[in-house]
């Protein structure tokens, strides 16, 4: 019988507890497993994507207590704070203003990097509501877009900052 645990006796010593998108979840994972894979493969949260595994592309970006973090290099055992993924910033009934700006500017092409881009943009705008071009460049340089939709990313961040400035 092809058991998911193989022939080895399985030790339940690896129960990780996390708060993700406001919910407490328990994951059965070694503490050194990167948060990205714990979220995607064990908790079924697919918003953060895998692009490189070495924190060089930003596709895996989540927020931990509001700060942008590359979940592909954060061991799940070292998570200290509340995790927010793209699923947690808004719903289809009520999109986050950044998501709405992304839609209004028609940013996405293949779309694979965009969850990470949006999370980095949210981290930026949470602290700097009306960022300059320079501040945008300095926040977003770690998020690679192979389709190079950068001009529209910039436009969407500016659009979101105008919106939030109005409210």
């Amino acid at each position, binding site marked *: 019988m*092809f058991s*998911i*645990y*193989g022939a*080895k006796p399985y030790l339940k010593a690896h129960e990780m507890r996390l708060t993700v998108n406001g919910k407490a979840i328990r994951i059965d*994972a*070694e503490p050194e*497993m*990167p948060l990205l*894979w714990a979220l*995607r*493969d*064990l908790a079924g949260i*697919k*918003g*953060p*994507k*895998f*692009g*490189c*595994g*070495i924190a*060089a*592309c930003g*596709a895996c970006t989540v927020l931990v207590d509001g700060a942008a973090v590359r979940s592909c290099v954060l061991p799940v055992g070292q998570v200290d704070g509340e995790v927010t*993924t*793209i*699923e947690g910033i*808004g719903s*289809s009934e009520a*999109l986050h203003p950044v*998501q709405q700006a*992304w*839609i209004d500017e*028609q*940013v*996405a*092409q*293949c*779309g*694979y990097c*965009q*969850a990470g881009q*949006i999370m980095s943009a949210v981290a930026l705008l949470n602290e700097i509501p009306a960022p300059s071009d320079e501040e*945008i*460049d*300095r926040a*977003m*340089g770690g*998020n*690679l*877009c*192979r*389709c*190079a*939709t*950068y*001009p*529209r*990313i910039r436009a969407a961040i500016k659009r979101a900052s105008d919106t939030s400035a109005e409210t």
Partner: protein
Amino acid sequence: MSRAGRITRRVFLGTAGAAAAGLAVGYYFYRRPFPNPLEARAADGEAVFSPFVKIAADGPITIIVPRAEMGQGVTTTLAALVAEELDVRLDQIAVEHGPAASAYANIGMLQDAVPFPRFDDSAMVEMLRSGMGIVGKFLAIQGTGGSSSAIDAFERMRHAGALAREALKAEAARRWNVEASGLTTASAAVTNPATGEELSYAELAVDAASVAYSGEPGLRPASEWKLLGRAQPRLDIEAKSTGAPIFGIDVDLPDMVYGTVRMNPALGGRMRGFDAAAAEAMPGVLKIVEIDTHLGHGVGIIARSTWHAFRAAEAVAIEWEEAPAALDDAAVWERLEQAVSGNDGSTFRDDGDVDTAFADAPRERIVEAEYRVPFLAHATLEPMNATARFRDGNLHVWAPNQAPTLLRMACAREAGIDQDRCTIHTTSLGGGFGRRLETDYAVYATRLAMEAGGRPVKVTWTREEDTTHDTYRPAAIGRFKARLGADGLPQALDMKIASPSIIASMLPRLYPSLSAMGADAAIVDGSYNQPYTIPDYRVAGIKADIGLPLGFWRSVGNSYNGFFHEAFMDEVATAGGVDPVELRRRLMANYPTALGVVEKVAEMADWSGETAPNRAKGFAFATSFGSWVAEIVEVSEDSGRIRVENIWVAADVGTALDPGIVEAQLMSGALFGLSAAMFEEINFDAGRAVQTNFHDYEPLRIHQSPKVEIAILQAAAKMGGVGEVGTPPAAPALANAIFALTGERIRRLPLAREVVFA
């Protein structure tokens, strides 16, 4: 009451040009329609109108867009082709990719695979093109590539929409006992204007599809379009802005396990042996499997998560054999130099008498240059992956891919089953750029699925595996020579381009017993087929023998010929004392479409205006995939560092079906070209790719990106492609701008070898 909507076959004729000469039998098979793949799958209460349209009695209108959505917007634009004629709004439809099927063959992709310039519409070339159309129908390759999807679908899918609309009207006419011609359609409903009565498509669908409709509805002229020709909100934009699990890497199935592969980094080399003991002992590891295929040799891991599989893969002790082509960079350049120095090539353009033109040329009238470009990786941000399940002799494969029918063939072959027992599910692609025309990621997943006891296995490659097991854009050398006349204009051009043949590399991967023969026009695509009128003009392509795996990379041969040709034309302009834009005005005088984009971009960029002391502009032009594109790049210099400030793109695509998406693709293509020009390079050592991840293969980032301005023109006689056409002029426009700024010609890419970018 529900009824299956498949009482009458609703099949669809593929389009093609006029039938060329052929056997009567061949003609019969050519004219016979492909079977409609939707019919076998139609649910109860679902009406299938064609391979492209199905309408359910309880509401949903589904349009099949059988092309890979990799960001280029086919989901929206090809659906709009149907919706325009069907008279439905885009928010009233759902779009599916649909199954792998011959009915979805891309005929348009092959019709322009004839080795003549796209703007050559002489009778002979047109006949060759329609011949390729027939071949296309026989080969019936469902593929997304060559910037061809909209061109291929333009007639066919509008026709599908029109047919379904007329069948629905006919049904309403029968129910109301009136003439169909008096009825109107809008927003998924048929209305009788005389009475105000209305019936929704959903109510009519099942009955409508069950009656043979034999009309030949005409297609509406562009002047009547409501959707086409306007920017539409993309149908996939919300999913992509909310991290929705639409990519291959997001596939999630009951009872699924995870896997990865580790194949010989010495490309093409076999595996002498491996010891999996340490890996098998690791937690979460289920099985280690040998993978031994003509596509690669190595091991596969099955585990309880992708990360467990990645870790275990590193722990397998493997003894690799050498690569059959154990080349390093020096060896590659040597072979390219040998090839370009020799005379073994094929001549694709030979106007006038080049040899005589050069024979008595005074030295000072000669311009000569040699250009070099490296191998490039595709580096799609979603790495190679596929999910496969093999159970009871049936194989299902879920994969982001650009060639479902090829995938079906290759996976069925790997599993040792008939193709009709293999189902391909095509997901959204996190980038394609030509890489996902290959089958390896799916074949390896199939192998693992055979060892997984019926459980689905999602096989994800590490980025390192992806970068080092790519099918690379080949390196190339171009040697170009011009003879100037007294007026400073080129009288003669002689171009020799050497590169390994991509199709010769690719064909055996698909059909191991076949080898490609004859000339490969891709080697000179972008140099031999540009609209310059020069009396003596010769372009030859020489195949270099470099046994590394090569593949189609966005714009293919144009990706380096654009650089070679247009960097050289800039050198010609400089040597002749002619402004580069003025040079094009003179040499392209016979091609008003070309002139249109040249003038437009020069105006956008204020080419002849004042330039600040530390700034400069460069110009380039390329026609590729049927579109005409001119670009100007502006650079600035500060403390020895160069910043790419602006790029202006003027592109004539004939008909812009969705200007918003066209603009996005032109921007993407241009920046993709700049990225490669500035930073990208794959080196080789003993047949192994040196670069492995984004710390040493560095595509363009936001802070390095110029501002982009796009103009879309629609004067060209024929519809041209969009996805790739922004790429070829980008590298030369930038290199030419750097020359204008620094006085230094850089003839080898990437430019970061010579300059520092801010």
